[in-house]
């Protein structure tokens, strides 16, 4: 499983005027893994992720996602990825069902596919009774789970999750990670950022960004060994303390 590279990043850089948000990062993500992308606020995680999703134009460096070049084939990349932004961004004035229908339709799925998949997700999320309610009326935890389901509705190769569990209670957080594992078991590569170090332990491999650079990258076990720390929390603190940038 861990041989085929699905994301390759080579000295990828993004500058905003004089500020270098992402500074020549280099790493690979393998097909089927859960890749944790950690870093303090303002370290450049979201910017890096947005470049990989084709939402932001890199300043320099190379990167491919699902075999497509981020500079020239960004629209092909979009066909093969799912994305869940930090800010909840489904349509709150559409119902649960209508949101799924919309995104299924945009990705070119057939009516039958949309119908079956919608029924499956409503069952899985226990949202059957809420299917025709406006998304805006749902509690945050449900919204996040729904956003994740919509992000992988079209069965992409990779899904990018930007702090998917921010502000969510521990029970829902646990449920959310169950969903992530399930998606990974179905062959979807997971690229996830988080601030919760217990979540970092769930990942196959973890990278830690400090001031726009990738400072460490390995399995959680190896990182703890390397930094002689009992927990990922400790590893993170040791690395993040070196940061000179203030958070956002």
């Amino acid at each position, binding site marked *: 499983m861990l041989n085929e590279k699905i994301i390759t990043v080579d000295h990828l850089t993004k500058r905003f005027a004089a500020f270098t948000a992402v500074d020549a990062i280099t790493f690979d993500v393998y097909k089927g893994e859960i890749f944790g992308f950690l870093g303090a606020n303002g370290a450049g995680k979201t910017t890096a992720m947005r470049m990989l999703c084709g939402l932001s*134009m890199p300043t320099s460096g190379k990167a491919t996602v699902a075999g497509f070049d981020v500079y020239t084939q960004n629209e092909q990349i*979009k066909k093969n990825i799912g*994305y869940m932004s930090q800010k909840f*961004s489904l349509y709150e004035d*559409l119902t649960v069902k209508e949101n799924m229908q919309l995104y299924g339709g945009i990705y070119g799925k057939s009516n039958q596919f949309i119908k079956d998949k919608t029924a499956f997700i409503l069952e899985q999320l226990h949202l059957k009774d809420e299917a025709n309610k406006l998304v805006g009326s749902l509690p945050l935890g449900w919204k996040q789970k729904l956003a994740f389901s919509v992000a992988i509705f079209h069965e992409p190769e990779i899904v990018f999750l930007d702090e998917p569990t921010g502000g969510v209670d521990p029970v829902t957080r646990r449920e959310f990670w169950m969903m992530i594992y399930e998606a990974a078991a179905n062959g979807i590569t997971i690229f996830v950022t988080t601030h919760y170090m217990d979540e970092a332990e769930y990942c196959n491999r973890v990278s830690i960004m400090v001031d726009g650079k990738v400072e460490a990258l390995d399995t959680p076990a190896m990182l703890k060994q390397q930094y002689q720390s009992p927990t990922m929390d400790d590893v993170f603190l040791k690395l993040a303390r070196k940061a000179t940038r203030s958070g956002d």
Partner: protein
Amino acid sequence: MRTLKFLLQKEFRQIFRDPAILRIIFMMPVIQLIILPWAADYEIKNIKLAVTDKDHSSYSQKLISKITSSGYFQLTAYENSYHASLEKIEDDEADLILEIPASFEKQLVKEDEATLYLAGNAINGVKGNLGSAYLRSIIQDFNREVRLEWIQLPKFSPQTQIEVTSSNWFNALMNYKYFMVPGILVLLLTMVGANLTAINIVKEKEIGTIEQINVTPVQKVHFIIAKLVPFWILGLIVLTLGLLISRLFYGILPAGGFLTIYVFAAVYLLAVLGLGLLISTYAATQQQAMLISFFLMMIFVLLGGLYTSIDSMPVWAQWITRFNPVSYFIEVMRMVVLKGSGLSDIKQQLGTMFIFAVVLNSWAVINYRKRS
């Protein structure tokens, strides 16, 4: 095409789910078209007149009663001195002073000649100007009456006299509502087109839903068409509503036929929708979009030819009006409603508007970026 269907479905659902917006879209034309034309009047009425009558003769009384019976003037003061009348102007109780000198009647009868003095308050320039013009023509009329009464005019006057009689073509009664109502309707369509579209898209930017759309393989042309179509239809509904009100309340039936108006409006709406779209690609927040479109609307309205005639503007301002879509529609509305112009008569305006639509929409599509 299938993507477009899903996007259109989304837009229509969202618009019809916001009853406040719908209410505004439909209440705005109804209220504005029913109320505004009665108030936004070109005619100057209720001109406050202060008379300084130093003569107190039967002729001065005749003149005053002739002036007040014209319906344009209100006699607000009747003083004995010019000074007292001037105070009325200073207190804003009078717009015009008419001074009748002490020997008015005597001179008129004996010497066949008399002088009157007129002073206007130019703070409200239009009122002062038009007021004194009205007054002058009433006095001239009075003058003629007096002369007829006193002097037996020879059959052939030694002086050449030219009498002017005029008739008003296309709007025989000079009913200002005939050009005010269609004009207001044009402004309403512009508001619906430019404002609502701009705000709608910027709202998606603000709440972040556009990012979720941008990360999908959706083509930006599809996304933009889906945004335009609902407002294009809404605009035509507003137009229909407006034309209905014009008919019911003001008896206005476009002499050139409805088809001409609808054809032009369809192209016009594409142009203003493109403008709204363009604004949305530059604005980051709804507030910015509002300010930009407000700024443009002010220019559109004041340089649109509805309130002031474009022909009497300075040349540089006339150049600006050529880039103002509103001015074309107002011109077309007047041609069609009053003159009875048909499609072949408005070819030029239609062509210009088509260019507007193509340029604005292309500019907007190019400027709309899925990637920053």
